[in-house]
């Protein structure tokens, strides 16, 4: 490991109106070091990375790049210096090829011709063990492959610091391994890596150093290889938060939701068709569906809510064929849903929490013969806010004024308050801090113990193992076998997530891409 300091931050401070994003951050990264930045949502990790990449200007503080004080004028300047960043949300054009996408981000002198660029892409991607076909269109790539495009795009320039913002949240365990191999190779060649994550086991296996942020300040640094996961988690959260819990498993009773060979061809281009999905969800159990985003989870959820309508008999709820019932009718029958997108689908950003309570609560007693009694609604909302400890300015606060975790608590509370017989939950704790996540899981478990059926669709494997009684995975619109959680090994689940299970339909070319 080189002793040369690649990057040093001294007292970096950034205030936004109403909140401190970073306060007196000091950080130094050596050449060839893989440095983890840990912290919960809203801890200031992303702001700090954006400061380094020149997207955001700090209010105060110095930044030294290879021992020279600099002020990064913008991402283009950062790239010129040798700093690359892969964001959580990729900035790729789906209808263009890999090479065309990369060409767009290179400086003019960087690409003389597309064929020349394609050669370099193949060369660089081989060198780092991330095979890429430059002629493929981006929409046909898996999420993992799209991430490779983003990384290769950084590697094509003389890169000395690579920033990765939660890169593993979209990958299967197998893809994570291959990403880590690439990152280690890069580090061996002297490139420093800043790795943002909240998955502590990954940090432990990959990173040389870790800096933990909480509330915009550094709360500790550690050597991940010599620090336990509990100790790292402790640095991330307040003293009184329980870090993890285990729940007893439960055995399901009577069938609540049955899917019979559910198939669906969505109208939207690039949406994932569903193939012959069958499952049987019982009262008093939590069934988890694992899978990498974009493998049909969104389509399945919309079919279950009634936003997409399929064949009647393919979905049976309490013995009734409901495949053709619209969403309101399904809600009236006791189905509640927590969608993946909180703002803009699960909640209307500009409306008050009380109105957002009514958004799905209208099927219960919040409206009478089409008339609204706002007093009752506001009281009902206030009760949810109190019970689920939602931090807000009260029932009249706009939904968009809540942080992601608080909004999620509100939405889960809203759906549970309707006393559903079936709760369908997409990513129940995605982006939620540890304290709130524990609360949400407790609520799901107690709903299960009250004899209700719960379907959880999530990418968070740890969470699925924690709360689900039975598990399966979805890949390319097909569902793996369903097994009791305790009899599914993590390797087995990883294979399911990569599509390695028997289905009645032949494998598509896409599936091979995942194996690669």
């Amino acid at each position, binding site marked *: 490991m080189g002793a040369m300091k690649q990057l040093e931050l001294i007292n970096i401070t950034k205030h*936004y*109106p*109403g909140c401190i994003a970073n306060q007196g951050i000091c950080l130094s990264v050596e050449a060839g070091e893989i440095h983890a930045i840990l912290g919960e949502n809203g801890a200031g990790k992303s702001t700090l990375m954006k400061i380094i990449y020149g*997207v*955001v*200007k*700090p*209010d105060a503080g110095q930044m030294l790049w290879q021992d020279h004080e600099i002020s990064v004028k*913008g991402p283009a300047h950062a790239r010129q210096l040798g700093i690359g960043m892969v964001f959580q949300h990729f900035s790729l054009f789906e209808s263009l090829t890999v090479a065309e996408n990369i060409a767009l981000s290179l400086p003019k002198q960087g690409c003389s011709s597309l064929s020349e660029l394609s050669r370099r892409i193949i060369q660089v991607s081989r060198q780092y063990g991330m095979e890429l076909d430059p002629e493929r269109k981006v929409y046909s790539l898996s999420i993992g492959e799209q991430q490779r495009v983003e990384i290769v795009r950084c590697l094509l320039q003389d890169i000395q610091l690579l920033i990765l913002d939660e890169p593993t949240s979209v990958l299967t365990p197998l893809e994570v391994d291959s990403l880590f191999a690439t990152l280690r190779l890069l580090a061996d060649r002297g490139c420093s890596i800043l790795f943002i994550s909240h998955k502590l086991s990954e940090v432990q296996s990959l990173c040389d150093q870790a800096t933990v942020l909480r509330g915009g300040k550094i709360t500790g640094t550690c050597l991940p290889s010599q620090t336990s996961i509990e100790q790292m988690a402790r640095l991330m959260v307040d003293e009184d938060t329980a870090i993890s819990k285990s729940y007893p498993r439960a055995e399901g009773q009577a069938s609540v939701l049955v899917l019979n060979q559910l198939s669906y061809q969505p109208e939207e281009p690039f949406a994932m068709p569903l193939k012959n999905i069958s499952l049987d969800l019982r009262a008093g159990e939590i069934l988890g569906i694992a899978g990498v985003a974009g493998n049909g989870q969104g389509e399945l959820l919309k079919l279950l*809510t*009634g*936003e997409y309508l399929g064949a009647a008999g393919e979905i049976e709820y309490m013995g009734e064929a409901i495949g053709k019932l*619209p*969403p*309101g*009718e*399904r*809600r009236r029958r006791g189905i509640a*849903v927590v*969608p993946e*997108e909180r703002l*803009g*689908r*699960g*909640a*209307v*950003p*500009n*409306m008050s929490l009380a*109105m957002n309570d*009514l*958004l*799905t609560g*209208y*099927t219960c007693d919040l*409206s009478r013969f*089409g*008339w*609204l009694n*706002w007093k009752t609604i506001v009281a009902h909302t206030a009760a949810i806010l109190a019970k689920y400890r939602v931090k807000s300015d009260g029932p009249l606060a706009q939904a968009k004024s809540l942080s992601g975790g608080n909004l999620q608590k509100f939405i889960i509370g809203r759906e549970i308050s309707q006393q559903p017989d079936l709760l369908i939950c997409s990513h129940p704790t995605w982006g939620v801090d540890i304290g709130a996540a524990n609360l949400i899981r407790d609520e799901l478990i107690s709903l299960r113990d009250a004899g209700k059926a719960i379907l959880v669709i999530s990418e968070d494997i740890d969470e699925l193992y924690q709360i689900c009684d039975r598990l399966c995975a979805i890949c390319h619109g097909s569902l793996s076998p369903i097994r009791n959680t305790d009899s599914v090994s993590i390797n087995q689940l990883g294979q399911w997530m990569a599509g390695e299970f028997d289905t009645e339909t032949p494998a598509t070319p896409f599936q091979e891409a995942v194996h690669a």
Partner: protein
Amino acid sequence: MLKLEKRQYDSRRMALLSPLIAILLTLITGALLFSLLGHDPFNALYTFFLAPLSDLYGWTELGVKVTPLLLCATGLNMCYQAKIWNIGAEGQFIIGALAGGWVGLSFPDVETYWMLALVLVFGVLGGMLWAGLAAWMRTHFNANEILTTIMLNYIALYTLLYAVHGPLKDPAGYNFPESAQFGQYITLPPLIGDYRMNISVLFALLALVICWTLLSRTLLGFQIKVLGEDRAATAFAGFSEKRITWWVMLISGGLAGLAGISEVAGPIGQLVPQISPGYGYTAIIVVFLGRMSPIGILFASILLGMTYMGGEMIQMDLNLPKSITGLFQGMLLFFLLASDFLISYRIIPANKLSWART
């Protein structure tokens, strides 16, 4: 140097101030315009805005102008709350007038006030039919309602022209393109004395109250607002976008149709080629100037009504063209849109710019 910066939250205060700023800027520009035309600006503005209201007659005439504006704007507001951009109040107004007028003229011998009720109902139905066409094209073919309603406006106008030049032309009318005069039993009674203002002004106020109750107290109103804010949430909650579209378009069309028939069965008293001085279009300005709120819409319709009166007054007193009305309405909308920019943005000195770059 000054710079623009996006506000963290939309400014509520600016949302209320913006129409006042727009009115002020309109007055200043208007004054400038009058003085460039060689008139004393204060006297001209007085003539335009205040002189018409110097007696009871003036106030009742204002009521005549405000009634159709308020009816159309109340309906349009329902659509705009759902972000369904019905630009077709003008056409719905005309077809309402034509449908009601046609029924009224078809039975000249029935001498009962039930006839008046029938005429009004047909006026409403006519407007609903015209708006329903656009709603149908929107819900079945996903045709953009802005385009369809604008095009339907022209079809409505030419249908009216055909009617008054052809089938509904008064045989005893010396070949003028006009229908026969409406009789006593199909004419709306005046509200006070012998003035032209009739009971339709009460319809307008009632419609405002009913529509407002609908929006703020009923589930349908809530669904309309959710659709306006967030289509994905509408589908997720299980509100039918098509059903909401039909509702708001039919309400809007019905009220515009009522405005139309009230105009011909009231102040005009017959079908003529020119039954609307653009009430359906001006109502769009009313809705936005009134911030889509009931009190706001009431005040905005009064202000816009005054521009119609002022145009006539200025033509009589200062010998300037009546089209000054359109000029003032245009300026008002222009300045309103400009100052609405300040709801989401603010002007700050350049050196204070915070470094939020994207």
